């Protein structure tokens, strides 16, 4: 799943470690989420959204294929 985490973090001039500290997770976790290697659980996604003051949908983007499949239903 794609996300805007890196951009949102850069806008606030936070390092990965800064965000990890705020989320109380490891820096590796932030890196894995940013690079799309790991999709966070719903509770963690909500924590991320709360920290940026946005909704989950404003941070995490559905895959194009997934969106197409849903539109076809």
């Amino acid at each position, binding site marked *: 799943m794609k996300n805007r985490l890196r951009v949102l973090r850069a806008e606030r001039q936070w390092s990965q470690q800064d965000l*990890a*500290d705020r989320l*109380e*997770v*490891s*820096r*590796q*976790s932030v*890196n*894995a*989420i940013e*690079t799309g*290697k*790991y999709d*966070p*659980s719903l509770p*963690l996604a909500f924590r991320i959204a709360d920290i940026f003051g946005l909704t989950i949908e404003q941070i995490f983007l559905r895959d194009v294929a997934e969106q197409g499949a849903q539109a076809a239903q």
Partner: protein
Amino acid sequence: MTPAFKKPEARRYLIRIALAMALYLGSLYAAEVLIEDGGLRGWPAYALAALPGLSFAAVFWIFARLIVEERDEFQRLLYVRQGMVATGLALTAAAVWGFLETYLPVAHVEAYWWPTIWCFGLGVGALYNRVTMGTAGDCA
């Protein structure tokens, strides 16, 4: 977040592993001295001979506790993947060697090597995580 060795769950893991290894080495030494050299027989000998093997049960329990106690969900995923790689490697090696022993004149491998291979498999699992996920995890 605190460095890996300062995280309470990682620290507990290391302490528990150290205790399990002490139990393993202690019981192995006791079995050598009391059974092999001292001629201990009967149920005490069976109980003592089982102890080094049972210390592997402690290792599996310790690894399970690490997964349960870890608060970082991504690290938890890495541990689970590590454990799956280790389990797959150890059981596959045991099955393959078992059939080799059945059909071909290969050397016999004592069964206690399979859980030992599982422990080495954790290292392979950490390497697999490193290659595929970019990090080996906190307790690799």
